[in-house]
């Protein structure tokens, strides 16, 4: 579908439409259209995540993790993505508490490595189990989504270790929300075709909005709630 749209487009003046020509060239050298669309939409996704933080106060784990989570959801679907994430987080939390209960004292990096060892086993078990549920469509699973999910789980356990389980839960929850929102935008066919057909407009408007966001110094939505008592005074 994207292919037909792209080929049906007249490119116009190369001086004002350099990206359109670049996309066309990439298409002819057999770069997949999905990659091109994702590349174009990635700045939009990071803009959304930045806006959620600066206007609403939703933090999550930085900007990279929610963005890659959105790509993971796009690749293997949100149900399977969330399922795998749950398996990974549960496995690492369970293994960590067991290590502590058994009083096995290990240095930090070997301990982390050991936890990832357990996570790998659990992911295998989950994939084996998913094989029997035909509706899940495990075929899209490649190493990259799994690596990103493991990265997220590591971040989760790190925060849990350093701060508290509560903070880790909120941050992870926020990351998942950000990932889902970004995924919803990424997966919209209208957004995809608009970005592909108007790459210059897309990137320039993202640039303008980024500049605006960076200069916004007002209160965030969450802060309005946090300081409500002060405002009422």
């Amino acid at each position, binding site marked *: 579908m994207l292919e037909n749209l792209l080929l049906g487009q007249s490119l116009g003046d190369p001086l004002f439409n350099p990206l359109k020509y670049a996309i066309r060239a990439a298409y002819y050298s057999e770069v997949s259209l999905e990659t091109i669309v994702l590349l174009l939409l990635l700045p939009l996704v990071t803009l959304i995540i930045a806006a959620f933080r600066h206007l609403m106060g939703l933090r999550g784990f930085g900007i990279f993790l929610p963005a890659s989570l959105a790509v993971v959801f796009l690749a293997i679907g949100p149900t399977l993505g969330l399922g795998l994430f749950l398996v990974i987080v549960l496995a690492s939390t369970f293994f960590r508490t067991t290590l502590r209960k058994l009083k096995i*004292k290990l*240095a*930090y990096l070997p301990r982390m490595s050991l936890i990832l060892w357990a996570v790998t086993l659990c992911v295998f078990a989950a994939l084996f189990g998913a094989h029997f549920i035909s509706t899940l469509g495990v075929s899209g699973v490649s190493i990259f989504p799994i690596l990103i999910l493991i990265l997220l789980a590591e971040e989760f356990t*790190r925060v849990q270790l350093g701060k508290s389980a509560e903070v880790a839960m909120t941050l992870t929850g926020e990351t998942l929300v950000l990932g889902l929102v970004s995924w919803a935008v990424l997966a919209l066919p209208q957004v995809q075709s608009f970005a592909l057909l108007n790459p210059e407009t897309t990137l320039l408007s993202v640039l303008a909005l980024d500049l605006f966001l960076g200069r*916004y110094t007002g209160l965030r939505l969450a802060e309005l709630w946090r300081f409500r*008592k*002060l405002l009422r005074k």
Partner: protein
Amino acid sequence: MKLSSILGLNSRSAIFGNNSARSKRIARSKILTKRILRRAGVPTPKLYKVFRTDRDISNFDWGKISSSFALKPSKSSYGDGIIIVRKRVDVENKLTPSYWVTSQRKKIYKEDLDLHVLDILEGAYSVGNVPDIAFCEEYIARHKVFRRFAYRGTPDIRVLVFNSVPVMSMLRLPTVESGGRANLHKGAIGVGIDIETGVTTYAIHHGERIEYKPGNSKVKFSGIKIPSWSQILEVAVSGAAAAGLDLCGVDVVLHSERGPQVLELNSQPGLQIQLANMAGLRKRLERVEDLRVLDAEHGVRIAKALFSSHAKRKSEDTHVLGIAEKIKIRTANGAKRVVEAKVDTGAHRSAIDKKLARELGLLKARNILWKRKVRSTFGEEERPVISLVFWLRGKKIVTQAGVADRKNMKKRVIIGRRDLGGFLVELGRKK
């Protein structure tokens, strides 16, 4: 309160976060902070031992240092990875090794301490998990004033310093939940402090207002008088200045004999302090932004004149004032001088005659808070605003006063609305 008075995360980093790269580096590392503070002569807890590599730990005898100490990572935030050891217990028979007791009353052995140091060196608690340095420092037991209010750990006083002026302050009390640590994120209680008097005002726990200690309705948080208050503020300002930080949160602990000690500096201080003081930070920061501050003492004086909260003080009985009142003014050398003053509800700020101010020694550079441009019939002129302490009907008022030429006026001092809170004025009243 207006929206624009409150400081949010966006404005903290965008407008007031102009700390230099060097000063931020100092604030990030507790070890570096200690070194800089010591060099500048700012009091800080004694350093016992620094662990830089694994080798430092393999031949270290924990019994050699004081039996109570704090083991900390250099680059952690929110108090992560800090172990506070209260005492060492040596067991009589030689078979069982001696152990230490932490502030959470947990027994720990030499191996636990070693392993914790290794964890720190690996970067388990540092921001971004980069390799870190561990160190042991003197543990400062809590001051007896705070004994009723804090649970086990040592409370500290967070002073927010901006442009060498202490703009806001808060007492941080550890709770059972925070595990003896004084971080609000960990569940400690924050109590706002009036900058002028050092008396506590409102308390917050998890962002909600509380009045009494959780689980003990006999212990009230407001009205605690913090000892050595001016000294605490001055030490905080000197600490921030030593690191070259423009906006920073200074954590000060009170040692029973040695007085205030700077624990650490934060280049990105938390914003809950606004709730504990029921006051907006942004407005306060804007008010001191362009001032020229001479030294720590000057900065503290400015803060006391600007941010005192007369309104909050309970007035036991309301005095009725006439138009003319006798006041006592504190002179530069601490004496009191009786002066006739005019009560002027039409003026905002109090004012004092230039000649009188000079006579009382109040026009010295140290006492001038800032200069104000005034437009009058003679064109534009700069008038100094000075710090002024006076007693009106026995009530001490710490404030600011404009200096003007009033030699042709009957009364050489006028008292403005700013300082008349809690008084009534009766127009026809004769003394």
